[in-house]
């Protein structure tokens, strides 16, 4: 494979990995930026997306868990993947609204530490509830039939079609959310609230309603991440935290509350990861042939550490600290 083809493949894989981080990070970032609420349970929303998506799109046999013991081992509506792609965001949006109303709102005035502890506790409860219901073993989420298999791309050659769909769906959603925040009256209120919530209220605007919608949208994006990412990972109750940490890193290196920052951060992490997976250092003269795949997970943290040392507020973040 030529060097250019290899670079294109790394780029595409990186875009796909980054896309999942971006979907999660945008939600985290706008919730953190507007509502100043730290959501350690964001990974749980992703897991809800995974399981609801699984149950809507196909029929799955759960061999462990209480549902299986009570005779509901085989579950699922088998409506197909498109149905999951529509139903999951709605379900998780409603869940996000409920979370804002009953979890986040009573804690807006409590210290950040309490918010983290609460959402961390809820993340554990959600994870364990899934474990009790569906068992701790992994399920597989099948790709939609219309998007399985590989496509021939110029330069790159054969590339899994579903990965391209993940990039496309993420791109579309990012543009939509960006337009909503940048170019609508709703977005204007949200952005004003980010700057100075008290002032917005003094001007006679009910800030709580846009806030609740922001929480819902952020949650729905995490749900979508679960559905589109599902066929590329395993489905089990613990994957929520595995994606939560890179998503947080994406927010931190991109800059808080910035959608463009989240996209940039996600792309940097995704491409770093796919680069390390593919790259190996070969110096035939010295007999060196070292593959960097084991470092792929470490690499994203190292990149984050470097960015943080050079630019603590994140790449596209402003100098303003949230208190």
């Amino acid at each position, binding site marked *: 494979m030529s060097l250019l083809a290899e670079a294109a493949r790394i780029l595409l894989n990186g875009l796909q990995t980054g896309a999942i981080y971006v979907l999660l990070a945008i939600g985290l970032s706008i919730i953190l930026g507007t509502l100043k609420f730290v959501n350690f349970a964001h990974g749980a929303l992703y897991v809800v997306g995974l399981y609801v998506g699984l149950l809507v799109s196909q029929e799955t046999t759960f061999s462990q868990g209480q549902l299986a013991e009570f005779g509901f081992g085989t579950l699922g509506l088998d409506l197909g993947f498109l149905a999951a792609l529509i139903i999951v965001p709605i379900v998780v949006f409603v869940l996000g609204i409920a979370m804002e109303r009953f979890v986040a709102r009573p804690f807006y005035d409590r210290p950040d*530490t309490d918010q983290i502890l609460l959402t961390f506790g*809820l993340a554990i409860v959600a994870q364990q509830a899934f474990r009790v219901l569906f068992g701790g073993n992994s399920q597989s989420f099948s790709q939609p039939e219309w998007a399985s298999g590989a496509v021939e791309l110029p330069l790159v050659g054969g590339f899994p079609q579903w990965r391209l769909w993940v990039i496309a769906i993420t791109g579309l959603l990012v543009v939509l959310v960006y337009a909503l925040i940048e170019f609508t009256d709703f977005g204007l209120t949200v952005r004003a609230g980010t700057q100075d919530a008290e002032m917005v209220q003094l001007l006679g605007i009910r800030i709580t309603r846009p806030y609740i919608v922001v929480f819902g949208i952020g949650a729905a994006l995490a749900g979508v991440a679960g559905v589109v990412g599902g066929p590329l990972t395993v489905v089990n109750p613990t994957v929520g935290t595995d994606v939560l*940490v890179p998503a947080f*890193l994406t927010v*931190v290196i991109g800059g808080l509350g910035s959608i463009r920052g989240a996209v940039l951060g996600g792309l940097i992490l995704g491409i770093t990861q796919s680069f390390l997976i593919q790259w190996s250092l070969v110096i035939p003269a010295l007999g060196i042939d070292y593959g960097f795949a084991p470092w792929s997970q470490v690499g994203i943290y190292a990149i984050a550490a470097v960015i943080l040392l050079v630019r603590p507020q994140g790449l596209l973040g402003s100098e303003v600290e949230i208190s």
Partner: protein
Amino acid sequence: MHVSDEGANPTETEPDRGETVGGSTGTTPLSDVRARWKRVRERESTIIGLTIVGVALFPYLLVRAPVISELLRGYQELASLILVWGIFAIGFDLLLGRTGLLSFGHAALWGTGAYAAGWLSANVVQSPLVIVGVAVLFTVVLSVVLGVLSLRRGGIYFAILTLAFAQMIYFMASAPLSFITGGDNGLTGVDIGPLLGSVELGSELPSIAGTLLGTWRYAFIAVALVASVAVILRILNSPYGVVFRAIHGNERRAEFVGFDVRRYKLAAFVLSGTFAGLAGALFTVQGEYVPLASLYWTTSGEVVIMTVLGGVGTLIGPVIGAGIYLWVENVVSGGYPFDWIGPYWHLVLGLVFVIVVVLFPQGIWGIVEDGRSWITERLEER
């Protein structure tokens, strides 16, 4: 409701408050005795003495005492494990409870202590004291690095960054450094030698000490716990501890007064990391095996839960939290007579944790303290 002086102040950090308040409540014999007891109770030596009595009685009550041990279904190694995690939790609380910083990366420090101790024992020396000492030094160095990186940003970033860098260390241990750590299999081949070259840690203590404490291993860990409590008490009652409290109370004000807040936070992080490393090394001494999960974020989560459950900002709270968590994890999950709740132990602990965070931020020990001050108030009204 009248707020008593006990409710408002963590008792052990205010050595001379009790005198004035106790003296003003009246001259009845009861309140006089109470005031005197309060003065005694707040002395460092009294707290250390009570700790010694506590760790001496604990394994007897858990493992060998009639009736109680039958109910608790404890065993010797569980007693040791609870003390190890107890050290971890009081060290963690030095950060969360005293300085107000929530770290989600203490697994890195605990795990590093554990791996360093394990690797040393498998490859270099077997003396428990040397292993633990070197492992602690190793952890201190790592604490400084992690602390400097994580304290680049304040507030919520601290929790996120400690979590992130701890995960980085986990992933380093899991794949690229697996030739040292053993990767997913954990570190095997741990070989802990005799204490001071003569006493096997697994052997029973002689006579009454054996009945109370059980093994030398437990005694070794118990001494470490008592020493930790003594050191932490000294820190808290020193000017350093006062600055920690000032930062906890109002960070900006502490900064305006002229303290270099970031430096004190780093100091608190490193001190806390030192105890995490000590506990991690003792974990290796206790279990003679280091699982990869000791570096995973769930370990950080466990120490957070223990500390908050037991009561932040107290010395005994985190140890109680550790005891309850490990007892539930190891005994309740095991079946009879708890099989009705066993499979759900983790879910139940999660729910209890959420309830504590929402309704009882002072934790179990806070509830006990509230109950005690309520009772003494009633007694005084008589």
